[in-house]
């Protein structure tokens, strides 16, 4: 291949005006013509108005401006050297073979190049200038200057000027004018106005690209502002996955503000089919069978004593600069498959001004009453049961109206308000309906059956709750728990001896495929938390079970507690099965953390 290349000689590619060639070292100067060959030692020179282009066997192109002289000093297989005697040239060395050298000499310096484009000018007395357009030139002065370096590696975009042979100089950035002159078209026969035509076209193209980029940026800003408005007005997320029993689940999450002083977080769980499942070992029995078009709901509400700013971003500053207290909070889980018959469990928290905190004790059913921290009535309470419409077929939805009232803690037990610390948990329980009137909750609808209850096992001396989980390294993440609740706080059975009910839960941490996650799935991951949480969900199956005993003193061990939990449900045969995805919760915590710091509990 090299032999084939070097079989050819350098030749004149094109020319205009006065151009002469000396074909060999000993040859005579003769007028040049296109395709004329120039051997080693040969030379080419241009007169006033003349210009030429020489192409070498290795594809190197050399443009000569007027009044220039160039000699092909050396032309061997792996070494070429040009000598610029005087004038101006542009050299484009496109590509050299391995170990191949290419040099251009002037009276003052030698320039070594590879894959480079540069222009060079010199006078016979040694003044010179160099502009490197692409690549790099290694320049070495023939006569080292008294001061400064005698060798430079000059990269593209830089140049060098030597005013006098032997005088110190150093590289400098190309000026726009020098760069423009070097880049212009050096082909022979062009008028001065035509030489920068390509450059002007490129500049116009760049200007158009800049305009386009500006227009794109403007459009992007518009879209961003629109998206911000959407994001600020509401928060929402959703995911489709499979639950621990293999049912296809669609989870939708919303954070809304039903009124200016209330925040509500809703987790809606939809399943096209809810299949029957066997009781898990150490778990609880499901009696409801297969259900089509299943709908479950988890809802958290929190009310404040002042209106919150419209924009969530303003909340941190608002909570820190205002004395604001929560008035209540509630957490509801409900089986909403039938709109006219809702099975639910709710936990309520009222603001206790004396203690300056949210409490979930007896005051939930006795608004305004404060119970001390060590009071026997300062225990967790729940309200649970079935809410039904008066007439299922009408548009009036009393069941939902009751659930809304419970969500806002618009409830009370008139017996407790009257001074007692216990009741039957049902007949004196009232809710404020949408007309603003308190009515007995168990008087609405043909099958409404609601009871409130207080945790009976919070004091470990008398009873025990039930807990089951797997210990050990990399254990599966699930936990079963059941707590006994005394209905109406009637531990003695004085009123109607309603006894106990069991608030039982099976909690699982699952992946999108429904598999139960292990500890190391969460703790040993190279994924960032956001990505990891996208593949994780929590499933909580809730049952309210009858109790095999009315005496919590019998519940001295975990096993005894489990035995006391009946397989029979307390209200019908339904359960509540919610899948909660962390997506919106994480974003909400992230954005509302300052709000929570003001809540002492």
């Amino acid at each position, binding site marked *: 291949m090299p032999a084939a290349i070097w079989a050819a000689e350098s030749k004149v590619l094109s020319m205009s005006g006065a151009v002469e060639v000396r074909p060999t070292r000993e040859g005579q100067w003769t007028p040049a013509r296109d395709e004329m060959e120039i051997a080693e030692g040969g030379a080419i020179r241009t007169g006033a108005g003349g210009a030429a282009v020489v192409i070498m066997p290795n594809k190197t192109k050399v443009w000569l401006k007027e009044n220039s002289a160039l000699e092909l000093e050396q032309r061997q297989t792996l070494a070429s050297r040009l000598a610029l005697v005087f004038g101006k040239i542009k050299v484009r060395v*496109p*590509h050299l073979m391995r170990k191949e050298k290419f040099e251009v000499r002037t009276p003052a310096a030698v320039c070594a190049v*590879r*894959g*480079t484009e540069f222009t060079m000018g010199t006078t016979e007395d040694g003044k010179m200038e160099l*502009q*490197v357009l*692409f*690549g*790099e030139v290694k320049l070495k002065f023939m006569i080292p200057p008294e001061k400064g370096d005698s060798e430079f*590696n000059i*990269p*593209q*975009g*830089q140049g060098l000027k030597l005013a006098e042979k032997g005088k110190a100089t*150093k*590289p*400098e*950035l*190309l000026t726009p004018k020098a*760069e423009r002159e*070097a*880049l212009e078209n050096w082909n022979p026969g062009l008028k001065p106005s035509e030489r920068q035509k390509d450059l002007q076209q490129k500049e116009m193209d760049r200007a158009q690209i800049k305009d386009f980029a500006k227009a794109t940026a403007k459009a992007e800003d518009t879209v961003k502002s629109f998206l911000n408005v959407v994001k600020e007005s509401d928060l929402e997320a959703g995911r489709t996955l499979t639950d621990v029993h293999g049912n296809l689940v669609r989870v939708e999450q919303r954070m809304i503000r039903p009124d200016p002083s209330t925040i509500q977080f809703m987790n809606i769980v939809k399943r096209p089919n809810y299949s029957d499942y066997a009781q898990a070992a150490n778990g609880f029995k499901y009696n409801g069978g297969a259900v089509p078009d299943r709908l479950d709901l988890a809802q958290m509400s929190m009310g404040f004593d002042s209106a919150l700013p419209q924009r969530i971003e303003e909340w*941190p*500053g608002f*909570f*820190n*600069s205002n004395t604001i207290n929560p008035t209540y909070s509630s957490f509801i889980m409900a089986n909403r498959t039938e709109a006219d018959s809702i099975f639910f469990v709710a936990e309520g928290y009222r603001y206790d001004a004396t203690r300056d905190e949210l409490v979930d004790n007896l005051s939930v059913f006795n608004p305004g009453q404060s119970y001390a921290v060590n009071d026997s009535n300062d225990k967790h309470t729940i309200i649970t049961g079935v809410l039904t419409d008066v007439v299922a077929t009408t548009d009036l939805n009393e069941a939902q109206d009751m659930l809304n009232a419970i969500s806002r803690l618009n409830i009370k037990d008139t017996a407790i308000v009257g001074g007692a610390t216990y009741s039957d948990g049902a007949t004196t329980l009232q809710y404020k309906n949408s007309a603003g009137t308190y009515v007995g909750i168990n008087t609405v609808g043909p099958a409404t059956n609601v009871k409130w209850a207080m945790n009976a096992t919070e004091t470990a001396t008398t009873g025990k709750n039930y*807990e089951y*989980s*797997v*210990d*050990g*390294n990399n*254990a599966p*993440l*699930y*936990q079963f728990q059941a707590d006994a609740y005394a209905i109406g706080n009637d531990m003695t059975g004085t009123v109607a001896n309603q006894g106990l009910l069991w608030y039982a839960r099976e*909690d699982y*941490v699952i992946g999108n495929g429904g598999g139960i996650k292990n*500890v*190391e799935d969460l*703790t*040993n*991951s*190279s*994924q*960032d*938390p*956001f*990505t*990891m949480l996208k593949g994780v969900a929590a499933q909580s199956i809730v049952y309210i079970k009858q109790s095999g005993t009315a005496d919590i003193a019998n519940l001295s061990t975990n096993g005894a507690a489990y035995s006391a939990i009946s397989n029979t449900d307390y209200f019908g045969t339904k359960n509540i099965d919610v899948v909660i995805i962390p997506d919106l919760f*994480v*974003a909400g*915590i*992230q*954005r509302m*953390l*300052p709000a929570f*710091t003001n809540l002492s509990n």
Partner: protein
Amino acid sequence: MKRFTLSLAALLCLGGIAQAKVDWESKGMQIAGEIMANPAAFFYDFQQDLEATTPLPPGKRFGVQTSLFPTTIPMTYTNVSLKARLHGEGRIAPGVPQLDLIGGYWNMLAAKMATKDSQTIDSAKFGGYYMGAILSSSVSPRVRTFWGYKRSQMKAKLDFKAGEEPMFLGTAISSFDTGFKDDFFIAGIETPKGIGKLWSIQLNYGIKTQTISSKVSWYGKIFELGLNIYPEGVLVVHPVWNFHLNF
């Protein structure tokens, strides 16, 4: 450089006036919340500060860099980055861009120091690495564009002492092994502003995390000053000061 420093100082002063009414306590809590929500992303932004993702200047074959601020000081990320040119622009064939390999490693000293004083943490490893390649091509003598790819990984491993493990759903957690890993596309442009001095701006796009960040840098023969912008980060703007040598 003087103009750059003065401009930066003026910007900081103006920023101080403009933010005189900021509720810092609230802002602090917000930042803490964002860090809690995604700690790896917060610490990874500092890794991006130390990553040398610009090409070697034309004519340079090898480069070494260590980031001084905000990585070594105050984050105690001891770090080193290397660049090596495989071939220069146009060397293999006309139009073939310059190809540089890049890579680096860091380790957080504070994590190891904290372990010594902790009664619950047995050992803590906090570090990361990155590697990639950058192609650079000239569009004019003073303007170079570059494109590249990098794989970044940050690892955070925490082992708890036996008997001191925190509980989660009834299970003792003996260790945390988490981190951040993503592949990034890099695109940028650079232009010289003096001999051995360059301005560069680049965009990094994380393929998995779908995040974008930008770096604006001024670099001379020894130091690099820059502003890294992470629109989705906890600290959106990171001023950066790096030391480097190119040979």
